[in-house]
């Protein structure tokens, strides 16, 4: 029984991080209506940022958040303003290609600047664990999970109770009508993209104490985030969080009890099965899915 609980804990901790990364993608998709294929690269960039701050200035990964988060927010804003805004009125395919282009560009820039080497930080708490009644919990993973939970709650409160948050939700529903209200839609796009990048960055930085970074690390995150966002429902933040945990747990159990090599394949199969039954995702509102060909 302990063994099952241990696997469950592993899965949940992993899922928290997944949710954090995916929520940024969901925000960007929901508000800006762009399928951001460079999402994983945002995670990558934040991880490198954390690594270099550690390497060059001896800055602890958690402290580096103070630098990395604003920087990545700004990066997201710049990306949206100068690269994506100009293609916003073109076709969905065009927007998609643009983000794919950004993704390739960022990967190769990382490769040129920082080489293909994988980099990791060493902290005194990297390997620290909590042990009780036969269970082992990694502290940095627990911290990451806690921060994921907290920031997703904060995002929820922001969207629910602030005027700007309400405007963002209005844009998610109907940006043309939002405009009629005097909502400066493009400026809110900047905010949404910045926030999306910030959440990915948070995920990336929190992973650094127990993970490594290399130029192509982003690809799998992008794929994973797409699965989670679609599964949880486009536009549903709570759905994304639960779907993230769901995928993490599936991955842990499938990996442990079926085969570690098949765990990705298994969650993709489950993903497809869920979509067959509920095309709008587990918690989706059903809108917006047509844009990625699910409806």
């Amino acid at each position, binding site marked *: 029984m302990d063994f099952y609980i241990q696997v469950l804990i592993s899965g949940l901790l992993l899922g928290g991080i997944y949710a954090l990364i995916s929520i940024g993608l969901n925000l960007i998709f929901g508000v800006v209506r762009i399928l951001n294929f460079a999402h994983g690269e945002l995670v990558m960039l934040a991880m490198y940022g954390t690594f270099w701050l550690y390497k060059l200035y001896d800055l602890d990964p958690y402290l580096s958040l103070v630098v990395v988060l604003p920087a990545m927010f700004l990066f997201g804003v710049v990306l949206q303003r100068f690269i994506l805004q100009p293609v916003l009125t073109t076709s969905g395919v065009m927007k998609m290609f643009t983000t794919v282009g950004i993704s390739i560009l960022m990967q190769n820039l990382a490769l040129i600047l920082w080489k293909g080497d994988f980099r990791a930080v060493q902290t005194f708490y990297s390997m620290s664990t909590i042990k009780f009644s036969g269970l082992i919990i990694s502290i940095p993973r627990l911290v990451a999970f806690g921060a994921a939970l907290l920031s997703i709650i904060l995002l929820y409160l922001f969207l629910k109770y602030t*005027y700007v948050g*309400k*405007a963002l*939700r*209005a844009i998610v*529903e*109907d940006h*043309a*009508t*939002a*405009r*009629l*209200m*005097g*909502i*400066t*839609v493009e400026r809110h796009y900047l905010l949404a993209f910045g926030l999306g990048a910030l959440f990915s960055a948070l995920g990336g930085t929190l992973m650094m104490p127990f993970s490594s970074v290399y130029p192509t690390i982003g690809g799998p995150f992008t794929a994973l985030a797409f699965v989670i966002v679609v599964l949880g429902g486009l536009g549903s933040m709570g759905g994304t969080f639960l779907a993230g945990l769901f995928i993490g747990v599936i991955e842990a159990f499938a990996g442990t009890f079926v085969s570690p090599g098949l765990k990705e394949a298994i969650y993709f199969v489950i993903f497809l099965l869920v979509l067959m039954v509920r095309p709008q995702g587990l918690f989706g*509102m059903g809108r917006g899915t047509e844009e990625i060909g699910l409806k």
Partner: protein
Amino acid sequence: MLNLKGIDCFYGDFQVLRDLSLKVEAGQIVALLGPNAAGKSSTLAAISGALPYTKGEINFCEKPIKGIKPEKVVDLGIALVPEGRKLFQTLTVRENLELGAYSRHAREKRGKTLQQVYELFPVLKDRSSQTAGSLSGGEQQMCAIGRGLMAQPRLLMIDEMSLGLSPILAKQMFTMVQEIAAIGITIFLVEQQVHHTMRVADYTYIIEKGHITMSGPTKEIAANEHVKKTYLGM
């Protein structure tokens, strides 16, 4: 107050507005009537900045507003209640109303404006924490108009207000429009529902195939034989 002069407008190759000119005088209720696809909504879209036009100009309070984006047009004091209400379905009634006051000049006073809207439509106050999607058709229309009022407009444009409403409800809505006009807001009504509109409008334009074919004080228009035959079914 609002003055459209010689507007030509295209959807791709298709010309939706041809040399369209009309005026909305301050303090009046002005109606734009016409059959389906005559260019009524396009006229509103052109005014609100959502649809670019190739020829002509639009002046609001003597100032040209060509090229101003929709989110800025509302700042000038022009609010549009779009066809089909277009409420934010998953947001609450209150949130919908609040967002109506997003424009710069309305934002500060939104608390006060909200109370005025609640006074005008008490039902919205009762429903304030319900999602807009759960409202009945009539309530939705009230909410949409209330949202338009939240922008503190000088000119309120309402597109197809009576669409999908029962005759009794529609009648009530038109009465409501008169009340709104009475507090000093100029109203531009775009309608297919001719009877009720003519009851409340001071001045009427008839649009057919993107062109104004007839205009005049509502009483004169109502007396016109062509209008009687085509629109009033007499």
